[in-house]
């Protein structure tokens, strides 16, 4: 009898924790009372190429910025009344990320973007009520797909996939639990942040964390055991150990599944290649290519020649420095900040993708960022220049 009571209490606790995690509204019906559903073929390709197929809209090529985008014009759907997004893709590449895009009637010029969980097989759900921008009247809805930032090079070969269906629905128990399931099961890729903190980006809308729910269920199991089964002493210790171990194992299997999924992505990018080829498949393959174009010009220099790199972003600067090693290369802004803007004659400066920097051949000056040096051009390409600082006034 007591064991039955414990089992019933546990069942109620688990359901209660799930309901809390899903943000369940007890007044909502089981299924959406109203749903605006669209077949994939009703969306129009805005970037990239797509064709209608029996399954839906087949995206066959990406467009500018290696991005594909499809959308549908809507007749002003009430956002607050329809917070549950349901979407279904087939063969969505593991090397791609997915975002929802939408426009509101009150700000037609502004395209709003929400990062979505990677779409596994079957329907995926997302609770848009946690997105502050999801309000007013929605007049356009669509999806953008692009290579996973920081992980996949934009030049990675594209694999076609199909957008099968999309729907916006009113609140329901089904939608709330399905959105929780999508959030917890949703895979997220490695990112630069992964060595600091794991999970999807902290500024991305999400459900309540799985780890908190598992901890709560473990606590309920122990508390109900103490109250209903009168666990005490060694029996309590054993039962608590089993509960914690089971919770830990559950979290670990979830983590292992994510690791396996990320491993598949890594294999898709790098497997079957030797080292130099692997390096060319990294996300910054374009910067490696630039570095390889600069290196022949540097080959004529002494390995003591100081080389300073400037670019529009610190990522590009540091990656170029890394790719140009073992040349005597450093980051220009760091050196200027920590040492001096007075560069010795003979110092080489590489400027990459910096619109506010220029080399004036007529006057022999390298200018940018409020700095101005006498210089001679050594080499250059489409968006980079290699100049040598000359004697003379800065």
């Amino acid at each position, binding site marked *: 009898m007591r064991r039955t009571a414990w089992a019933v209490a546990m069942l109620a606790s688990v359901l209660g924790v799930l309901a809390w995690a899903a943000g369940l509204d007890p007044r909502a019906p089981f299924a959406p009372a109203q749903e605006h559903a669209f077949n994939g073929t009703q969306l129009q390709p805005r970037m990239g190429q797509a064709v209608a197929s029996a399954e839906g809209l087949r995206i066959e090529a990406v467009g500018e910025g290696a991005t594909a985008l499809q959308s549908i014009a809507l007749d002003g759907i009430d956002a607050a009344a329809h917070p549950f997004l349901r979407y279904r893709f087939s063969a969505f590449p593991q090397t791609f990320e997915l975002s929802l895009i939408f426009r509101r009637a009150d700000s037609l010029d502004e395209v709003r973007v929400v990062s979505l969980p990677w779409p596994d097989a079957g329907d995926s759900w997302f609770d848009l009520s946690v997105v502050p921008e999801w309000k007013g009247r929605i007049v356009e809805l669509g999806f953008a797909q692009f290579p996973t930032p920081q992980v996949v090079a934009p030049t990675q070969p594209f694999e076609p996939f199909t957008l099968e269906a999309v729907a916006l629905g009113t609140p329901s128990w089904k939608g709330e639990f399905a959105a929780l399931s999508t959030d917890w099961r949703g895979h997220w890729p490695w990112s630069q942040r992964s*060595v600091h903190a794991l999970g999807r980006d902290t500024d991305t809308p999400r459900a309540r964390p799985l780890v908190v729910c598992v901890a709560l269920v*473990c606590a309920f199991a122990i508390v109900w055991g103490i109250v209903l089964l009168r666990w005490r002493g060694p029996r309590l210790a054993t039962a608590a150990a089993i509960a*914690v171990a089971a919770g830990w194992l559950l979290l*670990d299997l979830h983590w292992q599944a994510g*690791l396996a999924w990320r491993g598949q992505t890594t294999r898709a990018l*790098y497997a079957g290649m030797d080292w130099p080829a692997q*390096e060319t498949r990294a996300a910054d393959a374009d910067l490696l290519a630039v570095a390889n174009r600069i290196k022949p010009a540097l080959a004529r220099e002494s390995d003591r020649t100081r080389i300073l790199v400037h670019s529009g972003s610190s990522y590009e600067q540091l990656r170029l420095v890394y790719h140009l090693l073992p040349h005597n290369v450093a980051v220009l802004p760091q*050196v200027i900040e920590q*040492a001096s803007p007075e560069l010795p004659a003979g110092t080489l400066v590489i400027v990459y993708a910096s619109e506010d920097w220029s080399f004036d051949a007529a006057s022999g000056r390298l200018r940018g960022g409020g700095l101005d040096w006498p210089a001679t051009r050594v080499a250059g390409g489409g968006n980079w220049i290699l100049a040598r600082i000359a004697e003379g006034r800065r």
Partner: protein
Amino acid sequence: MTASLLAWILPVFAGAGIHAAFVRELRGPGAVAAMLGYGYFIGLFLAAFLTCLLAGTQTSAAFARVAPCLAVIGAVAWSAAWYLRSRHVEISAARLSNAARVVIAVAVALVVLRLWTLAAEAALRPVFPWDAWSAWSVKPKTWYLLDRFVAYVDPAAWLAAPAADLRTSAVWDYPELLAWIEVWFASAAGAWNEPRIHLAWSGALAALGLASYGQWRGIGIGAALAAVLAWAMLSLPLIDAHAALAGYADLWMAAVFGLAVLAWLRWIRRGGAGQLLLAAGFALCLPMIKLEGAVWLLILSMVGVLGSIRANLRWRLVLGAILLVTIAISLGGFVFPMLGLGWVDVQWGEIVVPALGVLDLGWRPVGAAMLTGLFTLPNWHLLWYLLPVVLVWRWRRFAEDPASARIGTALLACCVFLFVLFFFTDAAAWAENHTSANRLVLHLVPAIFSLLAVLLAQPSSAAVAPLRDQPKADVDPG
């Protein structure tokens, strides 16, 4: 390929031999696991030291020059270990229960699956995380591809001497132990082959698990509990991420700090000068891995010294030190040297650390961000939910068991340091944006597992009393 394989085998051979010679225990519960785990780190640190010493003028020849030395050192160490081996180890014939066998088998299977998954990721991936390529791999890549060592200096010194053979970077003053390990593996691979080099991180994780299991068994913790704790530690997502996305120094910091604490713990529990030497050696390596290592070394040293003196004198010393610091700050501050960090200047409301800059002291409300990182993000499984429960449940062990008390004190001091760092200095930003905060916490995690191990294990006189006080060594069969 053979060289790459030998680059793994030779350090473990030499390191395990040195470990065996130090601890003089070739048999006994967990002895082989501890030997292999500690041996990996000892051997690689030795390889790094020898690479720096013998191959600084031709880094591409590091493997050719250092490998024979490691083979000779290993042979000598194993001979010494065999000659010095203890003949007093008694292994009980008590058998494991079937349930314990199942638990151990499942834990081992899960650990092997995890290590395989992580190594498979690391073995394919070019160096990925930001600081790995912008900071930690800059020096070794330069030294290896340039085929010689060049000194890194601050940007002002670099710019002021344009003809000198110098380099600079934003992290020119970072310690270089890991850099030489990377050169060692690059030399064996015959190229700056990032996946091959960074597989060493997966090795470090495996070695941490082996060493922890071995030492836990050595202090009398049952095989099932030791296996489950080893799995739990290696299952932590943030630790795993540092092996899969290799290149940061934090996994090594965590492992070396954890192994220093483990050897110290075993010395407290069962004596043996070898364990104390291991603890001191690993603690001294901390500042050679990362700047924060100086702080962990200072804390371990202080707690170690204070723990070895009589209680009444200890408290007088602590109170006297607090009084002295208070007076010194009220009189305008004081300076003291810290290995790896330089002369630290402590004043009211401000600490100046040459390697880190000026730290303005003042309350920063980052509690929510810290709690999020520890309790809600998928970084630590249930660790931070479990730890306070165990501490409250087993708090009496701190009074009964000197080992628990000292490790607990050391970890408490480390936590106080992190609390001050994140809640009272500009490092609060690291907690706010979920960057370095979790990585610094990571340093303490293997040692926290050792604390959990001694708290959770069933108390037994054999486990608590030092070996030197017992006529017959009694090893828990587990």
